[in-house]
């Protein structure tokens, strides 16, 4: 129930907001804020509950579901026993981590001695669902998925309302809920079409929550697309001067990715006649997919997600979108939307294409030889190229935008390492970047509201004029830079450690290890990042005041402190105590990695 609440409370609030007369701006704002706060509280509850919740309750949930499916559709006791036998066989394979073998419903029907042809329509549907759930149960247990919600949606296509949270998704849920509250607070002085703005923002939040929680591919896709439209309108209506161009570009780029994903989704559905959109079931069955299938699947999904991350060469929409978007939309865009791509790569590319992730699939040399190298090279390009571009920017906001491209490169590099440290670093980097980039965009927003321009070269001396602002901004900048003691450092260090160890740790278990020179190629990224950030800090805050008008600038208002301080605090907290969040993700990520390694061992 919690997951449904966390997903749909914003949507319901959006509908309520739409019914409020548009003159009642305060009511609109407070309703939206209330919904966002409630969502945030529930997301906190999810985080706490996850650490204390046991795995068994989920298993019981699945067992109960399986039992009721059988009981409702199968009357014959002998057949019932066969069904149970099938369930046991699937579970045994799940525990053994049986891979490669045919794990489709037809195979298990044979094992259990069920003659599929003799079943009537309801019974064969029931068998399919039993199979789907039993497979999913295995994955749910090992991935530490909790809070599972299972409901029927479109039975004709085996599309379910299937949600669940694990160590990968729940931190992002929490981040989304937090940033939503902060963004709504920051947007308090929006005067242009307030009602539509807040309603769209809440719809956006629903879409984001759904993307991270959906465990049914179709459901995931629907939420994925729902995110698209509110963002399009937020950029296009409330954005800067070139907003229309930017919004269309954002829309079309993202849509290209998502339609590619659609094809991959349908291809997965039909593969081996599995006929299921259940992500967990597909993950259990994934080791059996043929290499060709995995290769095309990897490409299709990777491009779909790469556009969102964005990964070079699909990144060109991002600077436009960021620069034109209103501050709050930029924050959500950088803080959460980019993570959708990263999340997708972890959930789908890692989960559904294990052979690709072990480097077993050969690629042409110009693509790196295998998928691991392919991703690592793209990651390095992102890191270095993004940093170089950021350094070249005069516009404060586009500098921050390009820094996002650079930072997301670490995610890819960490994943390519395929070591525990690397993967943990990658996911942690997503989370940290969510905090620090959100903070940076807010910092830009604050100064832009006062100066009405963003030209880095025209600032100067703000530090003395706005001390509180400068203090908070410095935390954000240094977190982004990767200063030890702040959160960015931990994740980047983990990524580099993982990538460095990759060549020694991975081959032992049959996974392709990254060569060390990749790490050396990526290292200049750190230097460049330090350079452009320090340079920016110097240009904005240090030196004499460049303009008389800057003297009139007031320091942070209470609302701005309310928005920036928690982010700054969190940057410090997670920098000092990374285990708080790492311990949360470790189990899930380690299982993900080890399940891929298990394929390689086979």
């Amino acid at each position, binding site marked *: 129930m919690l997951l449904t609440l966390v997903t749909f409370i914003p949507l319901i609030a959006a509908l309520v907001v739409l019914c409020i007369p548009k003159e009642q701006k305060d009511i609109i704002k407070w309703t939206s804020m209330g919904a966002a706060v409630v969502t945030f509280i529930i997301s906190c509850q999810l985080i706490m509950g996850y650490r204390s919740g046991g795995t068994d309750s989920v298993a019981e949930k699945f067992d109960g579901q399986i039992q009721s499916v059988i009981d409702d559709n199968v009357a014959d006791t002998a057949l019932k026993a066969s069904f149970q036998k099938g369930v046991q066989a699937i579970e045994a394979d799940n525990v053994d981590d049986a891979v490669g073998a045919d794990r489709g419903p037809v195979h298990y029907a044979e094992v259990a001695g069920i003659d599929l042809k003799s079943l009537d329509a309801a019974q064969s549907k029931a068998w399919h669902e039993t199979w789907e759930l039993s497979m999913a149960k295995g994955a749910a247990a090992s991935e530490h998925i909790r809070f599972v919600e299972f409901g029927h*949606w*479109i*039975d*004709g*296509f085996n*599309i379910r309302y299937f949600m669940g949270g694990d160590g990968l998704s729940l931190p992002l849920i929490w981040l989304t809920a937090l940033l939503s509250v902060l963004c709504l607070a920051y947007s308090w002085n929006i005067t242009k079409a307030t009602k539509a703005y807040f309603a769209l923002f809440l719809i956006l939040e629903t879409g984001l929550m759904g993307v991270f929680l959906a465990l049914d591919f179709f459901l995931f*896709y*629907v939420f994925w*697309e*729902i995110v*698209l*439209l509110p963002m*399009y*309108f937020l950029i*296009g*209506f409330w954005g800067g001067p070139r*907003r*229309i161009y930017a*919004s*269309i570009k954002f*829309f*079309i780029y993202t*849509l*290209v990715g998502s*339609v*590619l994903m*659609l*094809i991959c989704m*349908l*291809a997965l*559905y*039909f593969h081996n*006649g599995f*006929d299921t959109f259940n992500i967990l079931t597909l993950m259990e069955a994934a080791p059996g997919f043929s290499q060709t299938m995995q290769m095309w699947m990897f490409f299709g999904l990777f491009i779909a997600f790469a556009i969102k991350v964005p990964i070079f060469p699909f990144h060109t929409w991002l600077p436009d979108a960021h620069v034109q978007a209103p501050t709050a939309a930029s924050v959500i865009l950088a803080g959460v939307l980019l993570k959708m791509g990263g999340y997708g790569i972890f959930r789908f590319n890692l989960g559904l294409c294990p052979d690709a992730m072990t480097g077993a699939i050969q690629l042409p040399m110009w693509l790196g030889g295998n998928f691991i190298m392919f991703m690592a090279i793209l990651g390095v390009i992102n890191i270095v190229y993004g940093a170089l571009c950021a350094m070249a920017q005069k516009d404060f906001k586009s500098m921050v935008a390009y820094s996002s491209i650079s930072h997301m490169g670490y995610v890819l590099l960490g994943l390519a390492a395929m070591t525990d440290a690397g993967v943990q670093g990658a996911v942690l980097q997503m989370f940290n970047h969510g905090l620090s980039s959100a903070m940076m965009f807010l910092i830009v927003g604050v100064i832009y509201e006062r100066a009405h321009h963003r030209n880095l070269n025209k600032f100067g001396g703000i530090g003395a004029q706005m001390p509180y602002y400068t203090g908070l901004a410095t935390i954000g900048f240094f977190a982004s830079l990767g200063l030890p003691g702040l959160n960015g450092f931990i994740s980047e260090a983990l990524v580099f450690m993982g990538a460095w160890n990759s060549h020694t740790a991975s081959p032992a278990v049959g996974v392709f290890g990254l060569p060390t020179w990749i790490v050396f190629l990526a290292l200049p990224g750190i230097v460049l990042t330090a350079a452009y950030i320090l340079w920016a800090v110097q240009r904005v805050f240090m030196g004499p005041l460049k303009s008389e008008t800057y003297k009139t600038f007031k320091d942070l208002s209470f609302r701005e402190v309310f928005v920036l301080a928690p982010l700054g605090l969190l940057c410090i907290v997670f920098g000092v105590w990374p285990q708080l969040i790492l311990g949360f993700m470790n189990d899930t990520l380690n299982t993900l990695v080890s399940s891929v390694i298990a394929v390689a061992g086979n």
Partner: protein
Amino acid sequence: MMFFALSKQAGQIAVTNADVQEKFPGLVQEITSNLGAFLPELILAVGVMWVIMADLFTRRERSRRMGFHAFAFVAVALVSVICHGFSGDQELFRGMIVDDGFGAFFKVLLLVGTLICIPMVMMTRSFDGRRMGEFYGLLLGSVLGMFLMVTAKNMIMFFLGIEFASYTSYLLTGYLKGDRRGAEGALKYVIYGSVASGAMAYGLSLLYGLTGSLDMADVAQGLIVSRTTDVTVLIAGLLCFAGFGYKIAAFPMHFWSPDVYEGAPIPFTAFLSVISKAAGFAVLLRFAEGMVGTGNWELTLSNGDVVGVDWPLVVGVISALTMTVGNFAALFQRNLKRLLAYSSIAHAGYLLMGIAALAPGAENAIPGWQAILFYLVAYLFMNLGAFLVVSIIAEKTGRETLDAYRGLGSRSALLSVALGIFLISLIGLPPTGGFTGKVQLIKAVVDDGQIWLALVAVVNTVVSVYYYARIIRLMFLEESDDTSKVPLSAPVSAFVVLMIVPVLWLGVFFGSTVDFIRDLTLTLG
């Protein structure tokens, strides 16, 4: 000699009822018993005559009231179709037409569409002061012709139904006599339409020669059994496709549709782009299924060689070209009616994917025709909805160009949000019927292994985003000098809302519709 015979027969030319009774015992009873299943058609036929006759006794100022009469007849016909049910499975009138779930489904689709179009006609001011009896007579006649199209089993009925629907459409396109664009559109429509049907007649004659029968079941059987050489079958198929393709505006028979759609009165453009197209697809489906038998695309010779025409590929290529041509042409249109015309060519292309995937490879997969049926339902509401908004805007502002939509978001929230939803559905984004429909079509071709076609469709979807999103952008993101509100009466607002509901419903709860379509009976030719 022949001439002798002719002169002799002049005296005997009358065939009496008794003669028929003697030669075909029980014929009268047989035909009478078929009339029950034929009730909707009879209602429409009576309706045709009623509106024409009743109009003669109505003053011209009140002629628009004929719309109520026509509406009533269509509604009664709809009730009678639904009461008859969807489980029929019999031939009527000696194998001329069939009574099956597939046909009943299309009848409902056509009637619902007509029910939506009639109020649109009544809202259109350019019809004011004209005699409307003939208009509604032609409209109902067109629907009657389409009824025969969707239930035909004999090639004569195919031909007759198509021609009936076509002639009435030609006349309706040019119904606004003073309107020059309408007159030109109608002329182009009739000239090239006739040529297409002439080509189709030639194709049908070849099928008759190949199989020796006019009955679609025999034709299908005959094509499989006789294993004729490929080329003539291909020629016959392509010639027939010229006729059907003209109706559905498939490449390369699409060139008429932008002119006709732009020239016709908006409500009738809506009728043509949705209802006429749906009927065309019904014929094409029956024909395609019939011509090759159920899923029997390839003919295997006794020595094991596989011969035959790769129809999925042929249709797939046509489908790809149709959607590409439609979408790229739509990119550059500034008149919304014309833009929707090109976009409806593109949608015909998407729908043709279902025909290309008629023979599904995998088990449990939905055959292409079910995907087509679903998409047609969604398309009915989304496209008619879009035309409804276009029609309202044209009535209020007198303009059909894109400029009329600038800043509409602030002038009429309902209209702009509604049009936005219809356009999003036409793009194929969730949570709308257009999305679930397109997913099913793409699913059908992916399932059939024609990934390339799915990719073409995907690229086309992206292209289409550009021009659909441009309208959305104009409405919501740009501001116009004219900020006056667009006044809407309560019934019109309700009408618009009524069109939104099914579009969203089909996007979220499409399961029941899918199941319903799955259970339809298709008595094949």
